């Protein structure tokens, strides 16, 4: 397929301006869901259109883009979104967290700590953290307005009453800047602590639900918990079978018919950077000519 004749980063400039205004408002009110005029993108709703629109609104020719899905640069959806921006912007792309200025992600935060000046764009399927408890937006909007979060705390309490611990493992609700409860997108709760006081700007785009929200750099992000049942992250008994890491999020891979399993890092860049012998071509930043 040849590159279509489209504007830089696909969206027209007026649309980008509308999205940037929503982003500015979101940054000004950390954790607050700003409604925006989400457009139909050439990729399906639910597949990252919110993140794509945010990225398209903020990306510039000097940016170096990294796209990950489930921690990996090589899953088909990550490849597809990266190709979309290669075709429509010609910016350089990378798989290395440290080299990227702009990282669009679905369901993970890289293991390598982010730094100032980096921008994380999260794809968000369901921006409303209370949607499964109260599906009516008119109601949840009021609850946010009044900072009335009893519903969420009761849900967590009921988990404890039933199971002895909080049974939420991903999209674990957080309190941002001491004010708004926010869905961190379906990242594993393992990643939640990385959001707290992060030096990077974190933007969240929900295309189908038409909401944008943000966590500015150095903002408190507190995972909900109770004094006697504090928030805790997942731990593994195993180490990564490829790089030996014990501090990263591990995916289980089934290796034979008998159900044998091994654990590997979900963050493919982190894993490869810890295996110097393997590191070759696929690591390099690839400047793409304008398509």
């Amino acid at each position, binding site marked *: 397929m040849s590159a279509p004749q489209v504007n830089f980063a696909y969206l027209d400039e007026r649309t980008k301006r509308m999205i940037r205004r929503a982003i500015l408002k979101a940054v000004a009110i950390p954790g607050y869901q700003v409604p925006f005029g989400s*457009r*139909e993108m050439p990729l399906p709703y*639910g597949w990252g259109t919110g993140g794509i629109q945010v990225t398209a609104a903020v990306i510039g020719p000097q940016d170096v883009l990294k796209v990950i899905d489930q921690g990996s640069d090589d899953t088909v959806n990550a490849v597809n979104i990266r190709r979309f921006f290669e075709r429509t912007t010609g910016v350089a792309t990378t798989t290395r967290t440290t080299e990227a200025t702009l990282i669009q992600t679905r369901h993970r935060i890289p293991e390598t700590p982010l730094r100032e000046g980096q921008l994380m764009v999260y794809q968000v399927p369901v921006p409303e953290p209370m949607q499964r408890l109260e599906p009516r937006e008119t109601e949840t909007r009021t609850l946010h307005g009044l900072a009335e979060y009893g519903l969420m705390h009761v849900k967590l309490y009921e988990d404890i009453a039933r199971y002895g611990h909080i049974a939420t493992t991903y999209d674990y609700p957080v309190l941002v800047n001491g004010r708004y409860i926010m869905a961190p997108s379906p990242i*594993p709760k393992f990643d939640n602590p990385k959001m707290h006081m992060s030096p990077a700007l974190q933007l969240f785009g929900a295309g189908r639900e*038409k909401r944008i929200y943000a966590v500015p750099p150095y903002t408190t992000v507190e995972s909900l918990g109770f004094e006697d049942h504090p928030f805790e992250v997942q731990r593994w008994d195993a180490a990564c079978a490829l790089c030996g890491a014990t501090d990263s999020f591990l995916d289980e891979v089934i290796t034979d018919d008998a159900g044998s399993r091994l654990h590997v890092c979900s963050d493919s860049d982190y894993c490869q950077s810890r295996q110097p012998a393997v590191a070759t071509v696929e690591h390099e930043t690839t400047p793409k000519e304008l398509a």
Partner: protein
Amino acid sequence: MYVAVKGGETAILNSYRLLAEQRRGDRALPELSVAQIRQQLKLSVDRVMTEGSVYDPELAALAIKQAAGDLVEAIFLLRAYRATLPRLGSTLPLDTARMALERRISATFKDLPGGQVLGPTYDYTQRLLDFTLLANSPDSPRSVSAAFKAEEGAVPRVVDLLNQEGLIETRPVPPGDPAPMDLTRAPLRFPADRATRLQNLARGDEGFLLAMAYSTQRGYSHSHPFVGEIRLGQVALEIEPEELGFAISIGDLEITECEMVNQFAGSKTEPPQFTRGYGLAFGHSERKAMAMSLVDRALRAEELGEPVESPAQMQEFVLSHSDSLEASGFVQHLKLPHYVDFQSELELVRRLRAAAPQPGAEGDPA
């Protein structure tokens, strides 16, 4: 060894090729042209234009061809195309009383000014497969065109006739005639006013609206509906450029309009009267227009002081789930990898099972 996540780009490019082959089918047969689709699959084209929110039969036909006949996919293609088109201006409201009617039926009056015009419809075909179409027979000569001619001139609408007696609610233009919001430019917020709801329904998935409308006929918010009128025909699209000061026609649209007339028992402030549900679609899309008008009426429950008890009356339920792009995208996103989320759940379920009482142990028979 562990290689599953590599090679995504090659796989995607290969899938494009396989898809193109699947779409083309047997190369011994001539390729379907966009013009053929436009002319001979008109009802598909009309649905794609309606839900795609673009009146362009050629592009709709192209989308159908590209989508290999998957209409929801074709609607997606058209929507993505229109998303970044500039807005050049706003038209004047369509005057459907001045439609050139190809079909016009009323279920409420046996005869009425302008008459009943059956026009093209599957309604009274006997649904037997026509095996002569299998034979690809040469076209029979046109016989209808001489006999049939679109009705010209203004034909009053049934609701206007009812209005002369004061039996049906009127919807006066609000003061200042404010411009409706544009759902394609601004997000849907609740509660949504009627103009916004109608926009949403007009773009809504026909199957979804049909099921919602059907539910109102089966006890989930019954509204005693009658088809006041369905009309199909060409209507002039007019703009009034500021520098001109008068309206000029920029072309004709084929549309289907449905006015549903519903009973209303009255309220403290309103005497008993008929109320209205409205449906409008591009091209010939009667099922869509009728379903839309029933759902529109159901969604007016709150405004008319009726109890909101059934799904079809609930704004958030209907309007948030009517869009095929949103629904199809989110349902199908489950195909995307969820390794990380699933891993988190695996760990949780193992932990819960470890803590749960062993099966076979005394007590809980489960």
